[in-house]
């Protein structure tokens, strides 16, 4: 009796199987030491601005969504979270002047938008929160053409060029302000008929809700951005571990609880 002839594909399948298995095994090699370094140190350093409610607050009992999320991520990774408050964050349009370095921060929170501009400098981990331009006025709508509109662009990466073109096209007289105090003052003193700022900065304004109403600028050119935690570009093993930890937290419902606690999902009032 003759032996059955082996399939013509057997040899090919064996060869391809061997090389595919080799590449698959290689894909598990760690491409860098970023996670191992943090594990050795036992701590994750989160850099945040002094205040960016509700993502970062000065209230120790409710320190902010990004900080509590950072604590949950660190716990999930078996590490400790050290919050590093950096007053320079947000003070300048150019993030380079914030002087955030690898030595200071492993993660950056409190107002990082997941935009192309941010991703040029950092990798991002979206935190299921959304930002965009918010307008505030007495009527809950933009005033008539020719009115003064105070603008506080913020630092989260929304396009100021698009906003400025939009204001010019509608003949508004734009007035740039430096901080939330100046913004509120411009509105309450009547110097500006409306103000425009970034969503989370608007949430931190102390205005009488009965007198002023906020509204989204939802024209097609105003792209909203998800907010994120920033991680250093190239720290791939650390980013993968943090992303996996975030997924676990999200699946367990803890992240949703945090968002509910800080009113993150709520529309602006």
């Amino acid at each position: 009796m003759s032996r059955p002839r082996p399939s013509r594909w057997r040899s090919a399948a064996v060869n391809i199987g061997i090389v595919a298995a080799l590449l698959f095994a290689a894909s598990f090699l760690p491409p860098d030491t970023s996670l191992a370094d943090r594990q050795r140190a036992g701590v994750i350093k989160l850099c945040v601005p002094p205040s960016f409610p509700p993502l970062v607050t000065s209230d120790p009992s409710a320190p902010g969504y990004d900080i509590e999320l950072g604590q949950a991520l660190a716990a999930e990774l078996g590490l400790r979270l050290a919050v590093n408050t950096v007053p320079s964050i947000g003070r300048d349009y150019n993030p380079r002047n914030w002087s955030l370095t690898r030595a200071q921060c492993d993660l950056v929170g409190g107002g990082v938008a997941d935009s192309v501009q941010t991703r040029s400098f950092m990798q991002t981990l979206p935190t299921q929160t959304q930002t965009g331009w918010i307008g505030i006025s007495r009527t809950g709508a933009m005033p008539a053409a020719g009115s003064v509109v105070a603008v506080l662009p913020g630092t989260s990466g929304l396009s100021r060029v698009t906003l400025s073109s939009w204001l010019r096209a509608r003949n508004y007289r734009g007035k740039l302000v430096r901080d939330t105090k100046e913004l509120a003052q411009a509105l309450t003193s009547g110097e500006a008929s409306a103000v425009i700022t970034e969503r989370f900065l608007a949430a931190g304004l102390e205005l009488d809700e009965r007198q002023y109403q906020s509204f989204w600028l939802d024209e097609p050119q105003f792209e909203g951005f998800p907010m994120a935690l920033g991680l250093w570009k190239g720290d791939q093993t650390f980013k993968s571990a943090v992303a996996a930890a975030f997924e676990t937290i999200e699946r367990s419902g803890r992240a949703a609880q945090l968002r509910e606690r800080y009113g993150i999902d709520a529309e602006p009032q």
Partner: protein
Amino acid sequence: MEPMMLLRGLYAIWLREITRATRDRAQLIGGVSRPLIWLLILGVGLNPYFRGEVYGEVRFVIPYTYLQFLFPAVIVLNIMYTSIQFAVSVIWDREFGFLREVLVSPLPRPLILLGKVLGGSTIATLHGSLVLILARFADVTLSLSQMFTALGLMFVLAFGLTSFGVILAARVRSFEGFGVFSNTIILPLYFTSSSVFPLDPALTRTQMVTAYPEWLVFLVQINPITYAVDMLRGVLIGFNQFPPGYGPAVIFGMAALFFVVALIDFGRS
């Protein structure tokens, strides 16, 4: 000849190329070693020079990590090597008389060439898809639709380059000559395709000030492989340096043009 007979003839030629290539362990080892060298060694080795150190500092402004940026280019490199080296099979068949036997068969010459080119393209696509196994290592997340789109485009690219290999084979008389010839074509084409460095003066302002000599920009822009790499980057990591339509237009054009020229050359042989 009846259409079914023609199809069976086409299948037989395609199958011969597939069987020969998949049983050739040396060729498969080449298909594995290139991604290992380029992604694991070069990508990981250069990663620290492209990672972020200071937030806002301009180093590598592409909104992806260096490994992610390199990943699609390594796929194209694997396809280029396998497709152009396919010419060796044509020279081999010519040297050892197999081609003569096939040419005297009742199959029309265009169909013989199509069978050979389809076989070479299938193998080149297989070698390109081996790199996809390393997606996890490069931190590239792929959906099924991305994978299938990429595989389709990789096949069209492979078809064009395999036809180009046939054109080369018609002009080279020895194996030794072809080895030198192919390396002087593949490596310059690869290095001037924006494969290992980003080149897009229109991308961002920071990118614009990154100076490249004009002659290098010119070489990159006239190199068709640039657009093939850019097309795969668009599909796999969502990043295009050039208008997204350029890549498919170039590879489909290349496939049609090179196949017609290969047909003319093959008819003369």
